[in-house]
């Protein structure tokens, strides 16, 4: 049995770790990893919302032929589908980010974002 509050607090901490990473890392790949950590934290939070202690998977089995939401102890399936969508989107943006990072590396020969500045910025 897991306390749901633990999941919420841990996911918020993970989210903040990701935010800290994005703001402080200089390497663009590490920044992308930090963004992924933020997205994962949000996903864990969503999954945690659907979890009910000692519940079974929301699969329509023999014992659940008649779905009685109050009586039967199944976890909420909606957050699962939301997270599935969010994961797919996250993978898409991460792939796009890595593609851009590869191109940036071929231009600058470095992954450090501070060394990518041009002098005539303004």
């Amino acid at each position: 049995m897991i306390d749901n509050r633990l999941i919420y607090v841990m996911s918020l901490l993970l989210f903040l770790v990701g935010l800290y990473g994005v703001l402080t890392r200089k390497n663009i790949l590490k920044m992308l990893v930090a963004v992924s950590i933020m997205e994962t934290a949000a996903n864990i939070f969503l999954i945690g919302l659907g979890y009910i202690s000692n519940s079974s998977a929301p699969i329509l089995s023999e014992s659940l032929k008649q779905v009685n939401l109050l009586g039967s102890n199944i976890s909420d399936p909606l957050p699962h589908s939301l997270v599935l969508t969010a994961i797919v989107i996250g993978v898409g943006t991460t792939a796009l980010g890595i593609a851009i990072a590869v191109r940036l590396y071929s231009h600058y020969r470095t992954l450090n974002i501070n060394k990518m500045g041009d002098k005539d910025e303004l």
Partner: protein
Amino acid sequence: MSYNSAILLIAAPLLMAFLSFILGIFNKRIPAILLVLTLSFNFYFSTYLLTLVSSKGVLVSVISGFEPPFGINLVLTYFSLLLLSLIYLIILSASVVFVSKKTDENTVKVATLLFLFTAAASGLLLTGDIFNMFVFFEIFAVANISLISLKKNKTSLKGSFKYLLLSSIGSAFLLFGIGMIYGTLGTLNIAEIGLRFYELSPLTGAFIFIMFLGAILSETETFPFNFWITDSYKGARNFVNILLGSASSVAALYIFFRLFFTIIGYPINNRYEFLISMDARLIIALISAISVIVSEIGALSSKSVKRILAFSSASQMGMILFAFSISDFNSFSAALTLIFNLSLSKAILFLSSHEIMKGAKEKNIESFTGGLGRNPVFSALFIFGSLSMVGFPLTLGFYGKISLVASAVSASGYFSILVFVILLASAAELFYYFRLMHKLFVSEQNHTEKTKMNWFYAASGSLLLAVMIILALMPKFTERIVSSAAGDMMDKTTYIERVLKAEDLK
């Protein structure tokens, strides 16, 4: 066609995004023609729906038989359709600019991205489901990122990477906030969340407020993100600048309104009192005032024309957010007039400045010298756009700014102090726009040969200019549109009632 076909506004561009890839194999011109045709259809259909909504009120298009609050439904309001028509007009003018380019191997890909951009913008403005809004938010961001990186040079790649980071952080915040709402209220329908938001404890409400604020600040180019966004403008191609500066800004402002007004509903009774007494409106007003000042300082110190225009766009967004934070009927009218002014005149400015600077080695202020001799048509367009942007009398910007000031002064407390700061900053706007205009009139010593006229650019610019002139010279007509939309924005109860069809709530 009835209002139930509103899904076509999303489905048509999505279908064309797939079709253009297949048809592009045979002829690379086909996707470009399809793009203009689809956008014309979308523009026509959205204006038709707008007339329908203006007579019948808020309409709900039920999808696959799931009545709200279940399933995903499209909600057609006067405000959302008005902004959607505006966005289609901008994308149409940007695609006319895109079509004018010679076809190459990228044409098909860019057309697909523009279709995706259109579909995502339509979905963002029409959906009545908050998770669906998140999904369209992401599609919108991916289309924007890919469009910015089209040039494949250093600045454009760096700009698109920064945009990617910002939008990813924003979407993670949004997802967390949506999760919190689902966990506490058990619904994802915007109207139902708006109805029951008061049930939440102040701490949960404040948490969701912070998460949404984190999500929206990056999208609306406000402080502290305005410095990152300007890089994206500098590296992007011309028609992408038009999309970024006008269409994306309008969509971002719509999301802001739905999240903070319809859902959180700050003007009614939301005061978050913890350690110190804090008003949600004050936070947004302060952030927007800081954003206006910082953006104007950035614009004053910039040399690159695109960067100046980007900073000016960020400062205008700050002003509109300030108008949103006052949140009464007059300030909403002011915000809408400013949205019209920002999107139309910014598109004209990006378009004409590109043509004026054509052939110049460095695209900075100096390349404007002698512009009137080289390119009189686009110089005139630029001057008109600038005058409207700074709020010269008889232009759209003038009406917007004067009603913003009037509503801020009549609102109580800190708004009348903050509007002074905003006015001071917009005086700076006068300076750098007139500096650019002055350069146009300075004659060049070396060469005064005229640049070749690009008719596609001229057609696109004059389309936008015609709309601006109609809106500016017919104040009664503009006022009617704006006040209907502002009335629609203020009337949160009707929105909720019509969506949930809750007779017992009346």
